């Protein structure tokens, strides 16, 4: 891999020997450079990779010939992430502001959705994510993107919240399962996506917190019941029973 990120002296010239502009990432004092004829393509995991049919000789020619846009700095995100992390570790407060500005929206969106409607908790959890990120930033190796790394921390924090809530005694709810509520359905025929979304969160907000959390953890985060059991210290059977109760109440309120 020949993508490289290098720390350049701050007073380095803006142009390279060949007259081209030196690329600088987001105003940070780090210059990123890519060796000629190498156009890495980002993989879905944010890792650097080259096309399977890549050959150094024809890469640039074919890109230009077919009028395809030349990838901008290939996986600049990864190198950019590392540059940003380096700057933050050097306690560059402007880089810290850039870090917060760049990633808070996404982390907030994720946490907000997972903790709905406990908006009173969301802000604290998001802040905890960033503080935990700072504490562990030295361990970031740039193997994946900074975004994925932060989302991993957010997921962990949300799960910690779930665990805490699910370990408390379960609410005693008097309900009886109506066999009719499990009849065949075709909700996509009946409701448009936006309506489903609104209704889902409306029903969710009316559920006891334990039910809401267990449903979000299972279906929105797609966590296997076995993992949920391990993380909460409950048996898998207990989680399944809790899920069954939560599903029944949800369906009941959904259909009412």
């Amino acid at each position, binding site marked *: 891999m020949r993508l490289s990120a290098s720390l350049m002296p701050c007073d380095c010239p803006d142009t390279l020997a060949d007259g081209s502009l030196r690329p600088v990432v987001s105003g940070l004092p780090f210059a990123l450079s890519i060796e000629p004829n190498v156009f890495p393509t980002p993989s879905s995991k944010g890792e650097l990779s080259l096309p399977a049919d890549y050959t150094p000789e024809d890469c640039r020619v074919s890109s230009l010939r077919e009028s395809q846009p030349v990838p901008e700095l290939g996986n600049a995100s990864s190198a950019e992430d590392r540059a940003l992390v380096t700057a933050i570790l050097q*306690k560059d407060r402007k880089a*810290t502001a850039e870090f*917060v500005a760049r990633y808070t929206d996404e982390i907030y969106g994720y946490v907000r959705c997972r903790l709905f409607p406990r908006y009173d908790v969301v802000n604290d959890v998001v*802040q905890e994510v960033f503080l935990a990120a700072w504490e562990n930033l030295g361990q970031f190796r740039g193997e994946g993107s900074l975004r994925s790394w932060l989302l991993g921390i957010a997921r962990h924090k949300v799960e910690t919240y779930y665990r805490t809530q699910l370990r408390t005694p379960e609410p005693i709810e008097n309900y009886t399962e109506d066999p009719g509520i499990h009849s065949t359905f075709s909700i996509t025929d009946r409701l448009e996506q936006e309506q*489903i979304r609104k209704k889902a*969160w409306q029903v969710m907000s009316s559920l006891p917190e334990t039910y809401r959390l267990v449903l979000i953890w299972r279906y929105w985060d797609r966590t296997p019941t076995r993992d949920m059991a391990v993380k909460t210290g409950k048996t898998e059977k207990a989680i399944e029973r809790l899920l069954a109760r939560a599903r029944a109440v949800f369906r009941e309120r959904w259909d009412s």
Partner: protein
Amino acid sequence: MTRDRSDEEFFRVVADASESSETLPAPSSLKARIYSALVNRQAEAAPLMSFTELKACGQRLCVFEELVRIAPVGETIKSLNVCRVCHARVLAERMENPPIFWNGCPYVQLKNS
């Protein structure tokens, strides 16, 4: 068994439909509080990068930071987290659209992000 499968399918559809919705941007006051907390945490262990170094690295300083940078004081003072005593921080942490506009201020950047 059929009922379980039916339930699973139902909840998958509902989760997928709810997931794809657009998310709201984070409140700017939250961003401001996160930034303040991070910088405070960074300043706890060792001094922050001084304004002299920040300027040399090409970072933009706000008018107050610039004043501290050119003041005849040592680098220790120039490494302090001066935002702690700045009204821009107070406003940004408490208001969604704080009346702060000057260039180089991290809280203005967060407000506009």
